[in-house]
């Protein structure tokens, strides 16, 4: 699962994008990991994450299987963090997403203190992750670099659409939906906040960053890059 590695953008564009995730390794530290994974997510709450998620049940913004038709006029846009925590019922990857470095650093410090024994990773710009480790006094163990997209890149959409879609590395947010949301924000049919929640509901592991997506949509409102 490289679902957070290949987010499109330059290093500067990740200033509001810090994904910290915990993953149990099969056969190594997965037994009895569920309470530890729940604790990891609970520990994130005081640092005001913009999303939480688990790779089986999804993020804090989820689709509704029995939607009331009145929801078209009063849709709830509030992320439900507690539902994510309560929903963890098997060893899986869990993630907390932050929109600033200070929160990510403080969370990494807290995770170090808690000594959960889970494998912990920080996905952001290379410098951003180094700073998180430095602040917590942890030497990095391993690093996985993204070399970006190659091959038939002519099949890819423009950079703003790519930035929106690649925040769900599993590819659940379609190019067409992201383009449509940019258009709707430009037309004034929806606010960036509403458009972001539509997209975030398709992310099946909760690593989508609504704060960064809002910023990209605001930018796309006035200029297409």
């Amino acid at each position, binding site marked *: *699962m*490289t*679902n957070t*590695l*290949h987010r499109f*953008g330059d290093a500067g564009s*990740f200033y509001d994008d810090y994904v910290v*995730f915990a*993953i*149990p*390794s*099969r*056969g*190594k*530290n*997965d037994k009895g990991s569920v309470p530890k994974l729940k604790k990891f997510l609970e520990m994130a709450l005081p640092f005001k994450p913009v999303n939480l998620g688990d790779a*089986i049940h999804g993020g804090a913004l989820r*689709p509704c299987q*029995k*939607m009331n038709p009145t929801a078209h006029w009063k849709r709830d846009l509030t992320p439900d963090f507690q539902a994510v925590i309560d929903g963890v019922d098997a060893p899986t990857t869990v993630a907390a997403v932050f929109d600033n470095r200070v929160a990510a650093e403080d969370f990494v410090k807290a995770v170090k203190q808690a*000594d*959960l*024994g*889970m*494998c912990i*990773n*920080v*996905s952001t710009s*290379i410098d951003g992750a180094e700073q*998180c480790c430095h602040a917590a006094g*942890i*030497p*990095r*163990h*391993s*690093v*996985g*670099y*993204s*070399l*970006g*997209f*190659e*091959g*038939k*890149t002519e099949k890819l959409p423009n950079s703003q659409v790519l930035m929106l*879609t*690649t925040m769900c590395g*599993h*590819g*659940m947010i*379609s190019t*067409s*939906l992201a383009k449509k949301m940019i258009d*709707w924000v430009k037309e004034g*049919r929806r606010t960036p906040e509403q458009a972001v929640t*539509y997209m975030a*509901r*398709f992310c*099946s592991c909760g690593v989508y960053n609504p704060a960064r997506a809002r910023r990209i949509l605001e930018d796309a409102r006035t200029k297409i890059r």
Partner: protein
Amino acid sequence: MRINPDKCVACGNCTYVCPMGAIYIDPAIKRATVDRNECVECYACFHGLSQEHLNPTLVRTLRKLFQMVRLRFDPEPDVCPTAAFAPEDLEWPRVVRRAFSDPRVPHESTGVQGRGTEEVKTNDVSGRVQMGEVGFTIEFGRPGVGVWFHEIQKMTGALAKAGVAFEKKNPITSLMTDVPAGKLREDILGEKILSAIVEIKVPVARTEEIIRLVHEVEKQVDTVIALGVGTRCDKDGEENVVAPILERMGYKLERAKTNIGLGRITNPAEEKKEEPAGVAR
């Protein structure tokens, strides 16, 4: 995936949410239809759309009335008003489409959700990539393009010829019938998936050679490729071996996934370390 024509009201919402663009309104039947050849069974439509359970006849009648007076309802774009999606029981080999495309389904070969790989994310307990080694993740079809297995085989064949070691705990490796030759099962070559990752490991000294090989092969592959390179840091947390090679090759390193080394082996009995498949050199 199928769409029940008795329920579909042709609102068109689902045509936008399909990552492969495989859903369209068929003008002959005036219903949303799935192009089965292009559908990768990712279930984004089924899992991602909220569902109302409205009466299809009522909705169709209202839509017709609105159309007659040139009015358009502005509904939420992530809703199927009549819960018209009907997942099928998938059989082999079509079922591999879902295994590689629906991130909620764990890969049987590795037990991991998503694309089924742990890479360096668990390197602090798995020891998958050691000092002096480089782990490559060569990912096909992402973002939003998809890939056929016969395209992936072009790469695995070329890598095998170069004598690399395929990661054993990887879903693509588990589908190889001839690992030293990089050959995949014949019966899946005609299947399309959202994305898949080929994982290999080589000594650091071969980093540039492998990247240049990938560049050569990707010219023959009809999709996009996302390349990832994983390696160990030294005892001070520094990584001054692989990054300089990549930068010399012209890569501007922007983003990385950093394993911060807090993992511990906590399972009661440690499993025997498995060697990568294929021939290492």
